[in-house]
């Protein structure tokens, strides 16, 4: 199947759903669920996954308060001719930046300028500005906000809405990420820091690919990231620098290891398609009809249920399926690790209890390892057989 053919099939799968742009967070999320065809196909088809999840009965979304806070903080960083941003860049990156000339490539700005803001336009504008910035064009701006870059994910081009920024200095593109989780007493939350840096890595990888395509050396994208966070309980910005070259390398390997979306899609039943999202005025019946159609399509895509899925909007849906299939992963990845290849709870328990004889090495190991626990548990279930002193 050719790429255009895949594109066509993906459009059919998308069916009545609107197409969205992906962002670094979503792509990082897919790579957190390695091997999940379901996520990979839904992302390739640019399905708005949160709205699909809501339709399927797993409400999800972002808090409006978190969004507002993020916007307010970002505004603070960019206010007054970007005074705070420049100060942080000078302090943490040793760039003697004095003034920054920015261009904003967000939907709103482009619509104002051109009357439209589709993905192709945003990508084209981003490329145009990147070229100018990197070729030292005096008319080039210094800073790109809300650029749109592309990234090949499983053989399909993903359009990436970046919430990171790039500014050019000394011929290099440096990435800045502004997040609104706090650094209290100088220690930002470690899991959130990791997530922010992974998203930055996605953005850097796609930026490197874009400029390579434009004929520039990808090493002109620096792997040093400046992460800007609120300090303590105020909105005063604080900066943290990290070189994420290893993260970018890891990301590229994981991207390279993804199966071709073409192949995943080819394995699906023909004619799968998602319905349109029910409108606000839809009746109960219409909603239920849409839900059934969506469930049928999603369930036809193979899933890989793991602990990492908790961050995916479809978590409950896939979990319920896994439970119905009696998969061992319902008890969690750490527990499932102990069960090896033996796939269902019933099988593991029957091996552990000696009700069934093992036939493969995995079953033998499971029978031994979990069987020991079962024997100990059985002994302790009967109070009379607990450790005792004879004659007591």
């Amino acid at each position, binding site marked *: 199947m050719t790429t255009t053919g895949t594109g066509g099939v993906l459009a059919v799968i998308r069916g009545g759903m609107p197409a969205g742009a992906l962002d670094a967070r979503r792509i990082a999320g897919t*790579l*957190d669920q*390695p*091997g999940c065809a379901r996520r990979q196909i839904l992302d390739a088809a640019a399905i708005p996954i949160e709205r699909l999840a809501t339709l399927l009965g797993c409400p999800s979304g972002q808090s409006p308060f978190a969004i507002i806070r993020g916007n307010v903080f970002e505004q603070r960083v960019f206010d007054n001719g970007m005074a705070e941003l420049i100060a942080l860049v000078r302090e943490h990156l040793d760039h003697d930046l004095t003034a920054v000339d920015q261009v904003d490539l967000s939907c709103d700005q482009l619509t104002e300028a051109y009357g439209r803001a589709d993905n192709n336009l945003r990508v084209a504008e981003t490329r145009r500005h990147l070229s100018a910035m990197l070729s030292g064009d005096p008319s080039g701006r210094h800073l790109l906000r809300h650029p749109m870059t592309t990234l090949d994910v499983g053989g399909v081009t993903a359009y990436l809405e970046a919430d990171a920024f790039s500014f050019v200095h000394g011929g290099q593109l440096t990435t800045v990420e502004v997040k609104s989780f706090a*650094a209290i007493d*100088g*220690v*930002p939350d*470690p*899991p959130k*820091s*990791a*997530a922010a*840096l*992974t998203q930055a890595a996605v953005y850097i990888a796609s930026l490197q690919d874009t400029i390579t395509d434009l004929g520039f050396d990808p090493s002109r994208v620096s792997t040093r990231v400046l*992460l800007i966070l609120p300090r303590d309980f105020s909105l005063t910005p604080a900066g*943290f620098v*990290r*070189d994420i070259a*290893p*993260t970018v*390398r*890891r990301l590229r*390997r*994981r991207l*390279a*290891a993804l199966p071709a979306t073409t192949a995943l899609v080819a394995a699906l039943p023909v004619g799968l398609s998602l319905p349109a999202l029910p409108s606000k005025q839809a009746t109960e019946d219409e909603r239920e009809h849409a839900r059934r159609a969506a469930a049928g399509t999603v369930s036809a895509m193979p899933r890989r249920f*793991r602990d*990492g899925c908790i961050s995916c909007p479809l978590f409950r849906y896939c979990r319920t399926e896994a439970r119905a299939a009696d998969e061992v992963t319902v008890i969690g*990845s750490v527990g*499932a*690790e*102990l*069960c*090896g*290849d033996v796939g269902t709870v019933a099988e593991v328990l029957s091996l552990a209890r000696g009700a069934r004889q093992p036939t*493969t*090495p*995995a079953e*033998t*190991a*499971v029978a*031994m*390892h*979990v069987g020991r626990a079962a024997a100990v548990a059985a002994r302790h279930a009967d109070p009379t057989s607990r450790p005792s002193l004879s004659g007591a």
Partner: protein
Amino acid sequence: MTSRPGPSPADAHAAVVDEVWERFAAADDRVIGVYSPPGAGKSSLVRTVAARWATDGRPQLPIVTQTNNQADDLVSQLSGTTYRVGRLHASTYKPRAQQVAAGVAFSETVAALQGCDIVVAPARKWAYSIQGAWEAAVIDEVYQMRSDDLLRVADRFGRVLAVGDPGQLSPFTIGDERLVRGRPLSPLATAADTLRLTHPSAPWRALPVSWRLPPSAATLVSDAFYIRPFQAGTAEGERQLHCPPRSIDRAANRALAEAARTGWAFVELTEAHLPRTDPEVVEVIADLVDTIIGAGVRATDEQGVTPIGPGSIAVGVAHRDQRGHVTTAIDRGLAARGLPPGSVVVDTANRLQGRQFELLIAWHPLSGRRDATAFHLEAGRLCVLLSRHRHACLVVSRAGIRDQLDAHPGVEPVWLGEEPPAVDGWEANLTLLDRLEEHRVAA
């Protein structure tokens, strides 16, 4: 033997030792650091420094190790010389008879060891010796030492010579690490990193050569686990394993032949996911050990020819329960040969640190897993397992490691206030796998 450009390994090593000694003797630096790759003759450096110090007639020199075993090993190497060696120890410690016989002084108090030129003890014991102040001290295994262990002893010493291997396992805690991480001078940092932070202009030198690892291993270990490269002290061909030809074509024989030929073997079982006490891997390891013992292997090195027996082999694992199963299986084979149980060392990476053997069989930490975790990916663990041997290392694993690595999301928490680790465990694993696959033997 091929000739090498530049000074010979022995000369290069001696040059660093001389320079370190001169700086230490000159007393201009409060901190002198030495990077020591595995088997780099760190103990010979410490021995040389101690001997020269004592011969110079200087005041007593304390040596701080991290474990009792390390202290004992060092004392063995330092004893039987013209200077007096003392061993400070805790009340529960039993002095080794040979060391007593060799004239080493043992005491629970510093005062009783006043007449000694050198005093050796683990850090915990130095921490409990309240009295005493010394002008200078040697700290061994400074990358294994936790920053808070250094905190507890440092005020006794005016200046230090710190020696350690940056590729080894990092310190950890069973307590709540969130209390202390992410800030400068965290107690969980290595003592080495703390010294670098507080004394940024202190001189650090690298011992350039590993005397333990053969050339086949030195390049691989250096590339995968170290940012400062080192090379083997022996030349190609100086170390050899001679296996009498084996008639039966079994995987164990093929593995042994590959190990003898190249210094590495990667024994790969069919891919499967199963608990870490994988009985088939246990059997393969026990079979390998038995094959090696029964094959009449002889090892040639700079000193001559020695037969390889149970005492020359060790097995390295990642988990304690793996150790139990492997020991049981190996002991069965030993019993069948009339050899006593426990003749072959089987231990976890933690406890193998600092030890060396002619051959090492390593159970790959990622074997049989569906998903890699930070524990299993840790570079230090793999580095320890793969740098214990003088002749050959045989790695045993189920297939499928590459898939695990490719799929690993890598979302370990990041402490932005800390330096990122020098070596990324995930990349180290990948580099290692690339090289090991050249020596694959199907089980």
